């Protein structure tokens, strides 16, 4: 490395010259910037020229700082001349000279601007989501009507493939989780009910809770996390690589080809998984009631038969396909909303899971109101 760069004031007769010397290159940029700032502060007054004949090396960083100095010393339209510029560096300096003075990024004096903007964007974004959900539901409805008129155009192979992915392969994890939750609910129930000598009521609680709420909710949340995210990622990466545009130009409706098979697969899968999940949860609860609470299996089944009616089971099963519809529509809307970048794909996959779980719980609340009012 050669010596450090310098910038010195030299008086030449009446005129004042700023003499730059040494390497004016990127590694020295912080020091150079300081020197230029000092020269700017003390500069002005008298004729000033910038002498660069002693500069040993120059790159964009140095050239820009000389240009910055020249601009700040420009006084009433008179630019200080740059002297001693070698031919080799002249083109670089000229290149930098063409750069428009960059306006500082416009920062609003209002500090609250960014958070306010964020809130505004979120509100608009939520509105857009609702509109997109309605649009997708409409597209699915049209597609369904078309299918009813031409049942043979249904894509069975694709549907079976998706059914394997979202139903068959999901069975082990769904059964395991619901079994464990059944165990936990039963254990907690027995532990607390025992204080009142009401152990046996745990069967009532388990039956009603699992059949009406827990089974379908757990399955829906798991499916949203497992299959909804997969749908969004699949559709999103197809969108990114223009595959969906390609389909459209070949005369296919993406709703028919991509959305319907996934939707139908999920409509079949969620009720089946819910049924399996309910059985597994009751089994787990029964096991805990027997081993931990001392309720014999015979007594458990008897009590269960008395405490629950077919209504409870129907309530859970009615909810299941609706949850499937919500998850599939949200996942497909998010997938179709993916833009060109991988980051956008990640963001939409996350928001697909978050939104579908949110809507699943909202739907569950609505169902609770409806079933209560019709006395089921």
């Amino acid at each position, binding site marked *: 490395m*050669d010596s450090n760069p310098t910038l010195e004031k030299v008086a030449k007769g009446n005129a004042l010259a700023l003499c730059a010397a040494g*390497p004016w*290159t*990127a*590694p020295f*940029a*912080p020091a150079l*910037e300081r020197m230029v700032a000092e020269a700017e502060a003390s500069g002005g007054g008298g004729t000033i020229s910038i002498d660069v004949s002693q500069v*040993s*090396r*120059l*790159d*964009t*960083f140095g050239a*820009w*700082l000389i240009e*910055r100095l020249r601009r700040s010393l420009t006084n009433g339209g008179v630019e200080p001349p740059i002297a001693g510029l070698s031919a*080799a*560096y002249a*083109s*670089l300096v000229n*290149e*930098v000279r*063409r*750069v*428009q003075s*960059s*306006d*500082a*990024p416009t920062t609003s004096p209002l500090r609250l601007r960014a958070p306010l903007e964020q809130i505004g964007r979120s509100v608009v974004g939520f509105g857009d989501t609702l509109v997109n959900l309605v649009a997708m539901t409409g597209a699915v409805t049209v597609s369904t009507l078309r299918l009813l008129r031409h049942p043979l155009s249904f894509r069975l192979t694709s549907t079976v493939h998706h059914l394997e992915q979202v139903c068959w392969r999901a069975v082990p994890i769904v059964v395991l989780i619901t079994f464990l939750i059944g165990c936990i609910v039963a254990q907690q129930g027995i532990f607390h009910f025992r204080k009142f000598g009401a152990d046996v009521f745990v069967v009532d609680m388990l039956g009603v809770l699992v059949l009406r709420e827990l089974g379908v909710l757990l399955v829906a949340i798991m499916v949203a996390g497992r299959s909804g995210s997969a749908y969004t990622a699949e559709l999103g990466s197809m969108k990114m690589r223009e595959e969906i545009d390609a389909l459209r130009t070949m005369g296919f409706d993406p709703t028919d080809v991509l959305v319907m098979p996934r939707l139908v697969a999920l409509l079949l899968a969620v009720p089946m998984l819910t049924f399996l999940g309910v059985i597994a949860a009751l089994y787990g609860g029964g096991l805990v009631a027997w081993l931990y609470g001392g309720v014999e299996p015979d007594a458990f089944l008897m009590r269960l038969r008395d405490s629950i009616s077919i209504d409870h089971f129907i309530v859970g099963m009615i909810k299941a396909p609706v949850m499937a519809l919500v998850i599939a529509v949200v996942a497909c809307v998010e997938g179709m909303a993916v*833009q*060109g*970048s*991988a*980051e*956008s794909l990640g963001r939409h996959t996350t928001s697909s899971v978050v939104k579908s779980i949110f809507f699943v719980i909202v739907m569950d609340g609505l169902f609770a109101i409806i079933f209560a009012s019709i006395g089921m």
Partner: protein
Amino acid sequence: MAKSMPKKKPAEPIIRVRDVTVQFGATKVLDGLDLDVQRGEILGFVGPSGAGKSVLTRTIIGLVPKISGSIEVFGVDLDKANARERRSVERRWGILFQQGALFSSLTVRQNIQFPVREYLKLSQRLLDEITIAKLAMVGLRPEVADRMPSELSGGMIKRVALARALALDPELVFLDEPTSGLDPIGAGEFDELVRTLQRTLGLTVFMVTHDLDSLHTACDRIAVLGDGKIIAAGSMGEMKASRHPWLRQYFHGKRARAVAGA
């Protein structure tokens, strides 16, 4: 190591590739290849598709392992260099990948500032001004700085990627098919840009290309890859005079005649 503008010193190759062999499975892609790139020149690197042009580029920059041979860049043998020497070499080169390879989660401004921040401690003001200057050099307006890469057209992506490759004022730039996917006008502007930058910044340019126009307008020297070796290297005139069958076909084919006639 002081290096200023290109003064013709032909005895000083900036890249020195000797007897390099690269093998994928059983196929030898490069087989005892020798290549010199001189300081300050624009070397156009051509060859049939699948001949290993990108492989050689990636071998030089260290992304593909080689079986044998040596590669020196700026006089540093990259196999024997320690981490610090390697970093100092990497700081002095810039690479433009075929698809741009802009970081999709960063804005254009952040993409260009990324390598600068890593190596230099600059004030935010100087960083922003240098970013705008780099954008202007590649012919883009300052407004582009706050866009995301997904909002750019193909030609703009190449320009921003070039601006990022130039961010640290490198002495050597690798361009992998810089004009592929650009329209002829855009490609022509890009060639012109490379030439201008080479003149103003004193760059050495290693350009993999298929574009005959680029070879004509931008390149000082052309190297041709075939059968894992350099089968010819020289000026455009020498290439055209060559008797090699692939060269004859390449430089005297229909497309070449159309270019020459234009």
